[in-house]
């Protein structure tokens, strides 16, 4: 177990380091970042000054090493647009996005568990087909379009929820719905397949033969076992939700990391942009690392292969 954990840790560190190189190189895709930083209509003298100020006249490898070294010391640079240190700026938004991600995950599970169980219990019936249809239709609806539909319904027509902003729990309802419904089909299919397999197992037959009520058998015995792979998927999907938060937070002007990412991209605030790419990637690496180790701990077969 220790060897497995150490190996995974090493791999995660290597991935994080590679991502940091890529996030760093992202800025240099434009050719000359000094021109982009100086903005439109800048004179050559301004561009040269920017180049000097940000140390962009040094070799790439030196710039990268310098950037990484500062970050490892907790110096994340300064936001070009907000004129504040990028580190505290980003970490202050992280909470909102994590909250949104968890709420969206809750929405996804609240939709997918009942539907998945229903589809498995009445396999190949009309209910099963309807659940599948919901899943296929759900995956076809673009999430930004669904978000606009929610705004139309709940804010503009019914006037129940605020259109945009953040601060109260009401501000999180529509973003969580718009983000969560999209990952629900994946969970639903997994729960359905898991439940069908588990419901055919001997111990379920035993439980039924003992005369246990059907609800106890389904929810206590079967669902508990069918939900194990869902935990692994949840870790991965949370990573997807963090990425999807860019679109959804922007639509609802929810003051989280995703909205900040969008702002930094449109304002060409490169230090913030690089840092968010890096932070979200590292978060994903940590999530999959945790889920890998948890799985190996639960299932010894994984450790060996």
């Amino acid at each position: 177990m220790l060897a497995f954990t150490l190996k995974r840790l090493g791999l995660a560190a290597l991935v994080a380091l590679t991502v940091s190189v890529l996030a760093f190189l992202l800025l240099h895709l434009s050719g000359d970042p000094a021109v982009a930083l100086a903005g439109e209509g800048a004179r050559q003298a301004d561009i040269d000054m920017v180049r000097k100020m940000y140390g962009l006249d040094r070799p790439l490898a030196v710039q990268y090493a310098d950037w990484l070294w500062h970050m490892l010391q907790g110096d994340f640079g300064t936001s070009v647009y907000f004129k504040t240190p990028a580190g505290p700026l980003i970490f202050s938004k992280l909470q909102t996005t994590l909250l949104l991600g968890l709420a969206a995950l809750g929405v996804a599970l609240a939709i997918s568990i009942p539907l998945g169980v229903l589809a498995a219990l009445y396999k190949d019936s009309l209910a099963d087909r309807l659940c599948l249809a919901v899943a296929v239709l759900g995956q076809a609806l673009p999430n930004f379009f669904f978000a606009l539909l929610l705004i139309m319904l709940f804010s503009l027509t019914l006037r129940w929820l605020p259109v945009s902003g953040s601060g109260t729990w009401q501000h999180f309802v529509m973003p969580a719905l718009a983000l969560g419904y999209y990952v629900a089909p994946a969970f639903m299919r997994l729960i359905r397949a898991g439940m069908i397999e588990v419901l055919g197992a001997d111990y379920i037959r035993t439980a039924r033969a003992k005369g246990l009520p059907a609800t106890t058998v389904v929810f206590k015995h079967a669902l508990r076992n069918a939900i194990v792979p869902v935990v692994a998927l949840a870790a991965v999907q949370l990573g997807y939700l963090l990425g999807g938060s860019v679109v959804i937070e922007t639509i609802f002007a929810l003051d989280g990391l995703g909205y900040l990412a969008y702002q930094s991209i449109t304002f060409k605030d490169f230090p913030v942009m690089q840092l968010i790419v890096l932070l979200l990637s590292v978060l994903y690496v940590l999530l999959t690392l945790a889920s890998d180790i948890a799985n190996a701990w639960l299932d010894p077969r994984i450790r060996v292969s």
Partner: protein
Amino acid sequence: MTTPILPTTLPSTALPADAPPARGAELWRRARRNRALLVGGGILLLIVLVALFAPLLAPHDPYAQDLVRRTVPPAWYAKGSWLHPLGTDQLGRDYLSRLIYGARISLLIGLAVAVISGVIGTAMGLAAGYFGGRTDMVVSFLITTRLSMPVILVALATVAIVGGSLWVVILVLGLLKWDRFAVVMRSATQQVRSQEYVAAARAAGASTWRIVRGEVLPNVLPHLIVIATLEAASAILLEAALSFLGLGVQPPLPSWGLMISEAKAYMFFSFWLIAIPGSALALLIFAINLAGDGLHQLLSPEERA
């Protein structure tokens, strides 16, 4: 028991167990009974035809502005007219014509991204699965690294730095979305590689390239086709989201995502402006996903859940 010597003549009925079914006729017979494939493929074919014959079908020039006739509602509204069956947008451009030309953009994105990412991912997955060892380690590491970076965020940042255009979006998404191809091709190749016919081909002195092309590729092709449909759908949704955020296809091109973005300020009083391109997107994705599900059932019936 003595080892039987190979009979000099095989009885005419004895076929090897893994003989392919009569490919063409059998597939066609099963395809005609596959409702998901028929419905999905039918809708998709219709959209493709509309896109191909856009100049013949569009009633107006999709770029021609008519500032006198702005936001005219579709024909079924009281104020609508059959001159503009789906109304006009905020610049007085015919909405039906823009919708028809927009199908070209979505289909081009889906096809081009699936081809680019398919070639990259298949090459990587084949190499990793076939050669194993160090090649497999490198490819697996690249897949892990790629998965850790949120596609939408990296795509947004790249488009913001390089500049948005149809070709930039295609290239960026094509270079980002090879991961699923690589993952599936890798495990499919690993499976095929251990089959006896591959060993037989190698024993017969076939070169690696010949084995990959002649034995491995045809056998992993069903997986490849299914992944390609999923990736095409996902690429179309991503382009729409990027364009919706203003960092994808640029105006005045009639991308469906861009149409929703341009109309969202008017959505309360002119709901059709977002409903029409939104529904078109949902229909296209629905058709591709349904056709993909159908193809999956058709090409690998043994894996059906």
